[in-house]
């Protein structure tokens, strides 16, 4: 045991450190306690806070919905391929955007989205659609960012869902086919229930990643135009490192963390119930 204890210590040391960091942020908050809860009130009264919360939710909803649906679709298509090699090859291809750093993603999509010289508007004009302003329009900026995120994250979801699909025994489908259930029906009654844990896992992971979205926003829009892509973590960043209001930032940090834990918990419970 002593060896284990020693190594547990080696490991717990950094852990303790990280926990103490989180107390640190609380410590700054405690120092600011001379003003009581007024910082909380200030934060909650700040219209920018609510705006950024709204933007974040909009972004998260769009990204999760499309990532999961698209990934499910792709995973099912890939799963129906018979050759293992071809399947892995395509899975890797769908996974490939993840090799790109978020800054690079933001750059590339910034170029694709370019209102005048971007490829997307070029394709739109070829197909006969009017050109869009994408990141420069306050109503399109969040969907545009969500597309970037979906592009990045779908491959990861595909791999998890694919592994889930492959763990479903073939006999189930054969039995269902004998009972007369095919196609959609077998999908509804066999695939979905058995895949449920994987779907929940993907949802939780995506939820965590999407709420934390920062680099994309920072590198592509900096919260603009006129705050319409200000997300909650970006808001935090600006308060902490733009305006150096660490007390306020700590309040936000605690709020963000409780939000994340709360949401994953709800999602998890919801999934358990079904």
């Amino acid at each position: 045991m002593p060896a284990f204890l020693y190594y547990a210590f080696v490991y717990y040391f950094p852990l303790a450190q990280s926990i103490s960091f989180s107390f640190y942020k609380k410590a700054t908050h405690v120092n600011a306690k001379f003003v009581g809860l007024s910082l909380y009130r200030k934060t909650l009264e700040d219209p920018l806070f609510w705006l950024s919360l709204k933007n974040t939710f909009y972004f998260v909803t769009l990204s999760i919905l499309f990532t999961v649906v698209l990934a499910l679709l792709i995973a099912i298509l890939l799963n129906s391929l018979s050759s293992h090699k071809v399947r892995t090859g395509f899975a890797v291809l769908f996974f490939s955007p993840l090799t790109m750093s978020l800054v690079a993603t933001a750059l590339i999509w910034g170029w694709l989205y370019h209102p005048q010289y971007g490829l997307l508007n070029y394709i739109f004009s070829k197909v006969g659609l009017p050109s869009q302003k994408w990141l420069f329009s306050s109503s399109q900026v969040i969907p545009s960012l969500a597309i970037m995120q979906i592009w990045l994250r779908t491959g990861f979801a595909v791999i998890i869902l694919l592994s889930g699909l492959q763990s479903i025994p073939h006999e189930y489908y054969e039995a269902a086919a004998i009972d007369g259930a095919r196609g959609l029906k077998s999908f509804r009654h066999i695939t979905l229930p058995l895949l449920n844990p994987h779907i929940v896992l993907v949802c939780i992971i995506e939820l965590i990643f999407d709420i934390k979205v920062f680099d994309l926003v920072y590198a592509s829009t900096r919260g603009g135009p006129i705050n319409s892509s200000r997300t909650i973590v970006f808001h935090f960043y600006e308060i902490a490192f733009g305006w150096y209001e660490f007390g306020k930032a700590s309040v936000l940090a605690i709020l963000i963390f409780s939000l994340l834990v709360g949401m994953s918990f709800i999602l998890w419970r919801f999934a358990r119930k079904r």
Partner: protein
Amino acid sequence: MRSKFIIYFLIIVGAFIVFMPTLQTIFTSFRPSEELYHLPITILPQHPHFKNYVEVFARLPFGRYLFNSFIVSVICVVVSLFVASLAGYGFAKYDFRGKNLFFFAIVSMLMIPFQVLAVPLYCLVSKLNLIDTYPGIILPQVVSAFGVFLMRESIEDIPDDYIDAARIDGCSNLGIYWHIILPNVKSGLATLAIIKFMWTWKEFFWPLIVTTSDSVKVATIGLAEFTNMHYIEYHLACAATIVTMIPLVVMFIFFNKWVVAAMIRTGIK
């Protein structure tokens, strides 16, 4: 037969859409700058040349940045493999008080946006006088909560009998760790190594606030230096992007069997 054709068709269309941005980056990286802002737009570069890549390395010490990224990533991978496998071993095979609590405490670290920890971390690192040094960049990244999670999952699969047998033969705990545990979780370790390398290589935010001098800046920071508020030199930025992607792509091609197989096996259950 026809449904097979439709499936292939859909997959190929999907793959093309997914790959298009990357393709566009590759094309753009070979374009001269005049061609970028020239109407009508052409999909292929008309006068492809290699100058953008030369320019990237001439404008900034980009080679140095890449080297820094490499050093930082490798150190992070090695340390986090070591720590995560030990911790995973402890969590998987020993009972102690508050085990679940500790485990939950670690996994919940995954949920905290890094930006939230950045302020206290920055204070700490500057107190240790590590601002603008390798250890300063590496310190907050060496421990991987995800790694502990992954290692616990894979070590739990090892039968207890192996460990008991080794103990009867007089093997110490450390010996068991070295001779029994590590060889049995090779693919888990490989997965973690690859993922950790990718994450560290792509990390942007922390190096951004902690580095100021060229000798320690990493490649992602260099990438961002081709942009500013008003003007982005897309041809250079794209070339730099391709350069920073190459190591990951190479790694991915070499190890994709490990990644996919291990992801499916360790189940992300």
